[in-house]
């Protein structure tokens, strides 16, 4: 915080009293801060995130878990041979140190379902405000859905319902940067559930082109 009175939030940095974006994405302005919501990029682990991981290697008292991220996680077993290589687990990030070593905790085995991977930056859209979108997905598709912040989603249910939930999630991923999405997902899930239209109706594009964030452009001074 300096004379500008504005803070550079996530994806932004400050130089010579000006705020610049360091990421390719959409800018959001608040009263005292500016942040950038990225349109793409890999998952970076943060403490207390819930993620879906795949067990990669088992050691004496724990296992290394692939998290769809540049960094592996380590989960200490609570009992002997809790998981084996290839297991899909729902797990919480307990700690990330400065060298990005990830400690995991509360591992839970996921089985009899389908694992799908989407772009990690789209996950907030799948979850929605206070889980609103996820609740719609869960109730309308009648599936159990585990959403990992790292872009992995595990869906469990009857095959045709799983497929419908997957199609809905793919639609969210494709249209994550548009508005009016919740309504479209609702009508999709309550509708025939046929193949998702490749192009959604364009009426939601009411924003001026100016709202496209100018990458690396000035965001304030």
């Amino acid at each position: 915080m300096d004379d500008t009175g504005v803070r550079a939030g996530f994806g932004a940095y400050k130089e010579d009293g000006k705020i610049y974006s360091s990421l390719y994405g959409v800018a959001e302005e608040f009263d005292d801060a500016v942040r950038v919501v990225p349109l793409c990029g890999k998952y970076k682990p943060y403490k207390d995130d819930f993620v879906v991981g795949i067990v990669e290697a088992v050691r004496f008292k724990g296992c290394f878990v692939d998290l769809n991220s540049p960094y592996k996680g380590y989960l200490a077993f609570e009992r002997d041979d809790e998981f084996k290589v290839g297991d899909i687990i729902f797990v919480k990030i307990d700690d990330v140190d400065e060298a990005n070593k990830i400690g995991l905790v509360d591992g839970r085995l996921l089985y009899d379902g389908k694992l799908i991977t989407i772009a990690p930056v789209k996950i907030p859209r799948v979850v929605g405000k206070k889980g609103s979108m996820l609740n719609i997905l869960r109730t309308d598709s009648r599936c159990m859905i585990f959403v990992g912040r790292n872009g992995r989603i595990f869906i469990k249910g009857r095959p045709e319902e799983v497929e419908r939930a997957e199609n809905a999630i793919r639609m969210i991923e494709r249209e994550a940067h548009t508005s009016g999405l919740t309504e479209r997902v609702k009508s999709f899930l309550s509708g025939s559930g046929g193949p998702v239209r490749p192009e959604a109706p364009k009426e939601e594009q009411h924003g001026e082109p100016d709202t496209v964030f100018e990458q690396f452009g000035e965001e304030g001074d």
Partner: protein
Amino acid sequence: MGGVSNVPLIKDGKRLDGRKPDELRDVRIEAGVLERADGSAYLEWGSNKVLAAVYGPQEVLPKHLSDPTKAVLTYRYNMAPFSVDDRKRPGPDRRSVEISKISAEALEKVVLLEQFPNTMIKVFVEVLQAEAGTRCAALTAASVALADAGIPMRDLVVACAAGKINDTVVLDLGKSEDNFGQADVPIAIVPHTGEIVLMQMDGDLTRDEYTQALDLAVKGSMQVYELQKDALKRRYGGVVDEQ
């Protein structure tokens, strides 16, 4: 290059391809063209055609290269055997190793490497068709591909060349101008600070000509910078901010 050539390259204030001395060739950029890469870009600059792909941040291989304080950036500039008139022997040679090294160093200045310690970011640029100025085209495409991969950067890097032909300082040399001209100065800049992150010079210029060439190349770069931003905006169409 170097020395005075008797090949006429400028007639009536126009160059062989009809450009004015301070005019760029046509540049076209498209972001996100490859499905499998984390980020990619395709660029046409005159008859130059280059394809850039970015992978990462990912695990460092070979492992001993890993740096616990920042990410490692690798850059591979490669010319396709069919990119030039006489088939180029495939594989790295003295020239492409040099270009790869200086381009990697240019990108290291803008990528926020310290955000991803113990990882590796790989940049691959393939020159599919060459017509002078490929290192600039390659670097310009690579920085768009990096942004497309969602990698945090201080700014894009833009590269552009200026040079001297028939004792006149001109922007963005074409092939015959490169072969029969007197000097070629490729530069790469960080547009919002004006920092120069890459500069080379082939041939000779007086101090005045050098300043003139530098100004011209910076101006050219700024034009290309707009095209880079435009390519990234087009990638996701009309983005609407809902929250």
